[in-house]
């Protein structure tokens, strides 16, 4: 049994699995059920001035019949009175003293408003604060959420105001609706953030009903952009986490969020520099019990690797993530087809023929049976064939021995400039 305890900027939890601030953390009843199921922490549904929600609110994207490949919502922050939430936070913390409860907060960008709410939530015993600078809809129109989260100076200032009074660690939750997430992450760090979390949801429109011409979802025939999350956003979130993790100016722990559905996703986020993870959509899709396999699977993974604590894998892949200019231009892989595994669907052939470098040949063997072969000298090693191939193990991407010594684009440019300087 590996040690799964996690510590994010001083906030301890029995495991690295937290529920993200979202409908699953809307009330004490829910958070307590979640803790019973095994979740290590919960970021309470964002507190602030109670709002009015619309119905309907959610929509999801199915991909070829797979439900909830992506999820879209136009829900705002909590619609319950602050004192009710505070009372339930207090009760929940009392029942589960070892679990992490984080208050997610969003108020107008005014110093006294932040001071006031921070004191009130810390009074009921939260373990930390998460500043929601990420909600992309509704609140942004009031100058909060993503609206303030897209302006580095506002991120910095508000973080600073919170830090003036906060006694518990402060996590700043970042919006992905921005060109370079490290800009706002650095602003948060300058403002004194103890940790950053990412991502909140991505601006989205789930779909259009081609019969009624209504947006999906719609509210009385009208729609507005929502926030996208769920499995489809994982690569975007993972990149943002990685970009922050490898940026020396973002030298605070990261809480990874976005499309995490199981222990494998979790391991990927941890390897890319997240200290823990937060989950919303997967819990909304399947209920709290999914955490059982997350814990068990992570445990088995660590045991199998002979790693005694989950904290040991945090950031282990970060140094492998770099800029394009540092990639070795002389490294070569080519596709090789295993004809005994191949089922002859010809998908690799046509994808290479129509969309890559026309180097998978369709041949006939001595028995008159068709087979495929890669012309390795023309293969650029793009991976496309192996991506579309439906059979595990039918196409291997194999490394070729170096013909020229390793050289990156940056090294090449440097060499060229040295040559031109000399001449």
């Amino acid at each position, binding site marked *: 049994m590996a040690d799964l305890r996690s510590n994010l900027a001083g906030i301890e939890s029995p495991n690295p699995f937290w529920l993200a601030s979202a409908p699953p953390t809307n009330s004490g009843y829910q958070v307590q059920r979640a803790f019973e199921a095994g979740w290590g922490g919960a970021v309470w549904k964002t507190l602030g001035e109670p709002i009015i929600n619309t119905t309907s609110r959610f929509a999801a994207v199915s991909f070829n019949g797979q439900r909830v490949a992506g999820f879209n919502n136009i829900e705002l922050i909590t619609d319950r009175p602050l004192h009710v939430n505070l009372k339930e936070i207090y009760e929940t913390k009392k029942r589960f003293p070892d679990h992490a409860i984080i208050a997610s907060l969003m108020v107008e960008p005014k110093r006294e408003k932040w001071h006031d709410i921070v004191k009130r939530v810390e009074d009921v015993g939260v373990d930390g604060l998460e500043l929601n600078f990420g909600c992309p809809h509704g609140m942004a129109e009031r100058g909060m959420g993503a609206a303030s989260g897209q302006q580095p100076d506002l991120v910095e200032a508000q973080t600073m105001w919170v830090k003036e009074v906060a006694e518990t660690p402060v996590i700043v939750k970042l919006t992905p609706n921005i060109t370079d997430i490290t800009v706002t992450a650095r602003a948060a760090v300058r403002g004194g953030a103890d940790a950053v979390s990412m991502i909140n949801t991505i601006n989205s429109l789930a779909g259009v009903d081609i019969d009624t011409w209504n947006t999906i979802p719609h509210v009385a025939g009208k729609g507005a952009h929502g926030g996208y999350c769920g499995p489809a956003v994982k690569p975007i979130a993972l990149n943002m986490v990685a970009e922050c993790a490898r940026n020396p100016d973002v030298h605070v722990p990261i809480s990874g969020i976005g499309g995490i559905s199981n222990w494998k996703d979790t391991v990927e986020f941890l390897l890319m520099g997240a200290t823990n993870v937060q989950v919303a959509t997967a819990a909304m899709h399947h*209920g709290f019990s999914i955490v*059982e*396999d997350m814990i*068990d*699977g992570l445990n*088995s993974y660590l045991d199998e690797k002979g790693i005694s604590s989950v904290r040991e894998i945090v950031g282990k892949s970060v140094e492998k993530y770099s800029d394009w200019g540092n990639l070795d231009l002389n490294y070569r892989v080519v596709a090789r087809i295993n004809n005994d595994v191949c089922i002859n669907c010809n998908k690799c052939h046509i994808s290479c023929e129509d969309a890559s470098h026309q180097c998978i040949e369709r041949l006939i063997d001595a028995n008159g049976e068709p087979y495929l072969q890669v012309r390795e000298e023309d293969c650029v090693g793009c991976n496309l064939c192996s991506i579309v191939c439906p059979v595990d193990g039918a196409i291997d991407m194999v490394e070729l021995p170096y013909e020229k010594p390793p050289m990156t684009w940056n090294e090449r440019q440097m060499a060229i400039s040295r040559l031109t300087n000399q001449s």
Partner: protein
Amino acid sequence: MGTKKSAFISLTELARNFQEVKAGLTPAEARDESNRCLYCYDAPCIQACPTGINIPSFIKKIASGNLKGSARTIMEANPVGASCSRVCPTEELCEGACVLNHSTKPIRIGDLQRYATDWAIKNEQSLFKPGEKNGRRVAIIGSGPAGLSAGRELARLGYEVTIFEAKDKAGGLNTYGIVSFRLPQEVPLWEVKQVEQLGVEMITNVRVGADIEAHEITENFDAVVLAIGMGKVPMLGIEGEDLAGVHDAIEFVEATKTADLKEGLVGKRVAVIGAGNTAIDAATCSVRLGAANVKILYRRTQEEMTAYDFEYDFAKQDGVEFRWLTAPKRIIGDEKGNVKQLECWRMELGEPGADGRRRPMPVEGSEFILEVDAVVKAIGQTRHLDVIEAFGLEHHRGIVKVNLETCQTSNPKIYAAGDVIFGDGHGEAMVVTAAQQGKDTAYAIHKQLTKAGIESA
């Protein structure tokens, strides 16, 4: 298999006939199938599993690539879960209850269960740890699904467990009774090993009542679990039963699992009497031993047969013929004392008997002769009356009486589980019910003994 038979079948071919019929899922199949499960809440498939395996949980773990966790979830609830994945009548149980029966097609729960447990077998995982010793000792008689399950749970609760087993190997009918082409012996033997790894002492080749007295056991242990299953096939009570070539179905199947396969049935005509699960196993075994023609004779109709539909289909595919409303009257031998013919009668169904089923009655003058070389009797199982009586337990025609709540027999120190209590309306003689009864018995013992402990303290 098909119906084509040749008179010359080599031993290697025979051995191949006894290899597991059904291939396991490939990783790609397991991925597709596990991702198809809806992960229902309060899932009906769980309710339908007699051992209550958390099916959506183990399937989710296959989907996430946590095969060890998946196997643990299965084996936690069912100590013989690897065997069950192959022999459970899943259409009647979990898969029959899957909600997808109402929309597309049910999840292949049994096959996924096999996929996860096969992984654990192949990777030599040991999944459980014994509990801290509590100083109490329990004897279990019989190492079938019921005895093994009781033993495993008791060991996890900290008991010192000794299992007495009459046979050479442990595992009960899973090891000796269910045909290899459905359940290869290495599967139950792995389950036995899992239990032994918890420190359970397995004393084989010791028949309680013969090699060791019943009272010695009762006196030396804090509790006793009787899990001896059932006995041989009863006598038909007709002429010619002692001729060479007349077999007891259970011994007949056992021979294919313990000794080298013999060529004796190649090209022969076999009549199997009875239409329960054992009859199907005996008939399909005969086909695989090279018999040229195999008939199942049943005195009632297809409607009353106790074999499952999938078993019937399996036998049909093997080319087994069914003769309904047919009963043996006499077995006729040749001058050397070998079976030569079977005289049968036609039957008709009369008034319902005590069990509610219509009683078959011979039709006067309907006798006819079947040319056969072997007769296999599969008309149920007798009870181990001698052992039951040696322990002085109350029983009804060999069915040991138990208090269903406490699992205790008429002797409060002796508990009973599995086929030994099957009949008179409780339970079905299945591996999975025997396993659950074994678990229940372990918990019942723990409850009794801890209660007693508190009272005496």
